[in-house]
């Protein structure tokens, strides 16, 4: 599309408006300042400033008019902004005429009547400039731009709220619209239509903008809406623009799913076909959890346990044990006895008061006894347990059978055998098992892995071949 001179002029509107704002505010300020004698020397400047303020206001109005006509802006706010802008230009013209009629004199001219007129009109100009400027700002940055700054974390955090009744809720109203509203409406909405595109109603999405349709029901690959948000961030067609808040992976998934299932604004979530990925996402939303990416803690098990006793945590710390929340604000704990000053039952017993909060636990070269194992078995919610070189035997291993949520177990360097490890098959949640340097032979490992396909067993004992190059050096011929 060829840009005409008028279009070019129109695009200068956001720059030009700063001149009347600055000049008129200053001129009005001067009028009030020169009320007394103290700043009387400023008087001659007022008329000149008002002239240029008026002129720049006229330019702003005309460029603004052209910009509004370009089609990227529509709605009540645009009209209000337009007429307020014109009112500002007119008022500044009147003020200039009033001032001009009575030439400035550095000497105070007592209490002549027009002075009150001047002050009245200057107050009106000030008010008009403020209101018009605010409206313009709302058009550029979105209507809630100022409120956002005052609200805690607004515009940054996750958009999707907890879904109250996930099956009967309408997908569009419940999940899709809030995302579009937070991330798209400010440029593609009622007041502003960048690229001639509106996203605040399905009708407009189907109609599309300059670059084609935003919504092709059932065809996410043809829908500009879904395509743009999935482009790499450094692509110039990526939306939202790089400097704006980006959609999270979950939000993208929802929009994609919505378009793929027909892009309807009435369909209920329960009636739509759900892929495994979407199902998992909906479960997370139903529990009030948000994005599962790093940068959030949503894949922590819920409900959270009550906060651990501070005195117990301090006691652990004094014994050289690391006992910290898995993430800030969480009550779940990661414990590491690696740096424990005394590696004995007494130190281990310090764990008892916080056992309910333990999610990850690492003991290293820490001789375990039956009593020690009893202390450990109180950690019923533990997910990751690392016990390398802890002198665990088959008999002691039996006590681990109760960890129904254990996902990863590290038994490196313990004299356990196939008979003992076999009993661990009661650990239903187990995904990863480390058995390096245990009493299990290679054949035992293979049998175990076959019986237990859901668990990744790492038997270790990796070797690297000795190659000729490993011990020789290339020399200059």
């Amino acid at each position, binding site marked *: 599309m060829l840009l005409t001179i008028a279009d070019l002029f129109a695009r200068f509107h956001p720059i030009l408006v700063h001149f009347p704002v600055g000049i008129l505010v200053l001129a009005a300020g001067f009028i009030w300042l020169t009320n007394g004698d103290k700043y009387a020397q400023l008087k001659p400047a007022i008329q000149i400033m008002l002239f240029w303020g008026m002129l720049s206001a006229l330019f702003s109005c005309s460029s603004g008019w052209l910009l509004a006509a370009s089609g990227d802006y529509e709605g009540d706010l645009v009209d209000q902004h337009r007429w307020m802008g014109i009112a500002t230009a007119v008022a500044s013209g009147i003020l200039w005429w009033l001032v001009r009629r009575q030439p400035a004199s550095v000497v105070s001219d007592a209490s002549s009547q027009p002075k009150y007129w001047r002050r009245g009109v200057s107050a009106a100009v000030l008010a008009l400039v403020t209101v018009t400027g605010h409206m313009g700002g709302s058009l550029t940055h979105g209507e809630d731009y100022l409120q956002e700054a005052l609200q805690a974390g607004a515009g940054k955090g996750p958009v999707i709220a907890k879904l109250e009744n996930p099956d009967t809720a309408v997908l569009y109203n419940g999940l899709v619209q809030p995302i579009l509203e937070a991330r798209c409406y400010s440029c593609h909405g009622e007041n502003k239509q960048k690229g001639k595109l509106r996203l605040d109603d399905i009708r407009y999405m189907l109609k599309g903008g300059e670059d084609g349709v935003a919504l092709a029901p059932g065809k996410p690959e043809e829908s500009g809406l879904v395509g743009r948000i999935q482009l790499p961030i450094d692509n110039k067609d990526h939306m939202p623009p790089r400097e704006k808040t980006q959609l999270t992976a979950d939000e993208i998934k929802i929009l994609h799913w919505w378009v793929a299932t027909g892009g309807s604004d009435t369909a209920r979530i329960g009636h739509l076909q759900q892929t495994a990925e979407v199902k998992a996402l909906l479960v997370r939303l139903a529990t009030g959890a948000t994005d599962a990416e790093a940068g959030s803690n949503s894949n922590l098990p819920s409900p959270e346990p009550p906060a651990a006793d501070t005195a117990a945590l301090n006691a652990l710390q004094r014994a050289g044990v690391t006992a910290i929340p898995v993430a800030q604000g969480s009550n779940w704990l990661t414990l590491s006895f690696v740096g424990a000053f005394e590696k004995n039952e007494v130190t281990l017993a310090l764990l008892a008061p916080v056992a309910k909060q333990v999610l990850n636990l690492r003991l290293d070269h820490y001789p375990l006894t039956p009593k020690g194992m009893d202390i450990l078995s109180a950690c019923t919610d533990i997910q990751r347990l690392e016990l390398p070189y802890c002198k665990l035997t088959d008999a002691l291993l039996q006590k681990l059978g109760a960890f129904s949520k254990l996902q990863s177990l*590290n038994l490196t360097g313990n004299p356990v055998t196939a008979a003992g490890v076999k009993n661990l098959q009661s650990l239903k949640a187990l995904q990863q098992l480390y058995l390096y340097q245990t009493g299990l032979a290679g054949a035992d490992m293979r049998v175990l892995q076959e019986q237990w396909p859901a668990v990744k067993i790492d038997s270790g004992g990796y070797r690297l071949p000795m190659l000729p190059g490993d011990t020789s050096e290339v020399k200059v011929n």
Partner: protein
Amino acid sequence: MTTQDFINQRLAEEARLAQLQVQSRRHFLKESAMGLGALAMGSLLGGCGAGSRRADSGLIAFDPARPLLPKAPPFLGKARSVIYLHMAGAPSPLELFDYKPELAKMDGQDCPPSLLAGKQFAFIRGVPKMLGPQAKFAQHGESRTWISEHLPHLSTVVDEISFLKAVKTDQFNHAPAQLLVHTGSARLGRPSMGSWITYGLGTENQNLPGFVVLTSGGNFPDAGKSVWGSGFLPSVYQGVQCRSEGDPVLFIKDPNGMSRDLRKASIDAINKANQQSYDDYKDPEILSRISQYEMAYRMQIAAPEVMDINDEPDYIHEMYGTKPGKSCLANNVLLARKLVEKGVRYVQLFDWGWDAHGDHAGNSLNIGMINKYRSMDKCVTALLLDLKQRGLLDETLVVWGGEFGRTPMMENRNGAVNPFKGRDHHTEAFTIWMAGGGVKKGYTYGETDEIGYYGVSGRVEAFDIQATILNQMGFDHEAFTYPFQGRPFRLTDVSGRVIREIIA
């Protein structure tokens, strides 16, 4: 009055006088003016920025008296520790990871002017010749990753690794490029990544430093110790450089004639004196000093044991290819595993000597570099396998890389023909890889053009790598800040993007 009383009295008097010397009129005026002003500012600014979730999550509760206490990460991190293997001097990706058959066809031809226009090189002048890959490549693993014949061991573990093949930088000299990679700024004065992470997380083992640096290859990295410096963070967070030969830390043994108890008594006395001056001046650096003395004392017991790789069994030594009693990369890599096992947060390795210019045999692609590849290949492979079998790889992020790439052209130092085959510094594209710590296995992100000159897709820079490492450790790199000189500072400055593509 006993002699002891007399000495004490003298000491007290001396301390009083010393203190009076620093109390000047200026001191009084400054204290009162600043004190009142600060009070007023505090109440004025109290409301600013409060309530923002992102701002809050970046704040680290920092106790100057115990700066290394373990702290929770802002978010659930995938990795517990980092081992960063830096090949100082910048290895050539064209001989290791970035397979460019087209470049082989251009070998010996004059470099097309389009590649030279407007470019500045460290040593290339005029029109250099193109230089084909000095290696044969083959595909390995289930991921079918192309790897050079120079890495026979590493090619067996490519399915554990995420390659970033289009890393770029804007620094073509070693020191600034290394600083950029590790501190986020090409100029001196910023804290290194390890300092940021130990500041944010503390150390898991109170007997050991949280951030350990090991160097090999006969030289320090070109940027000097600033690459592991603490910048404006309290100095307690700077990397502790340990030696892989002799005592791990100089003077870690008790001097002759000094018993352990006496040592403890003298450290207690020094700390008491330091505590007094802290009470007087409230300089947090004094508290750092106290805690450093305390840690040094505990390290005397713990460090010699952890730092001694001799207690590892023979087959482990064989796997890493260590050279007992010498200083080499293999020893350091094995030591890195031991440190991570004992709860050290960040182990930074520098191996010097990868600057493949070809102006002498030692840095030529066909002689010196082959020896460097051999010294690195086996031990780094062993590290990945050893971490894996100990269940440590999924919580330890291993990063391997240099500070920039090498030109697809042969270096012609000052316009003359170099005696050996070599490549000049190149900023547009190089390879960095990560393994473990929650990154994808057997994955490649980013691609260079057909001669490995420019990145054509998936380009990333040092800030993105820093953002990714911080992310894996549980930090939002945009919120993780430290206030200095009146504004909050970030490791990634005003840039950086978490490379989500390689996160598992």
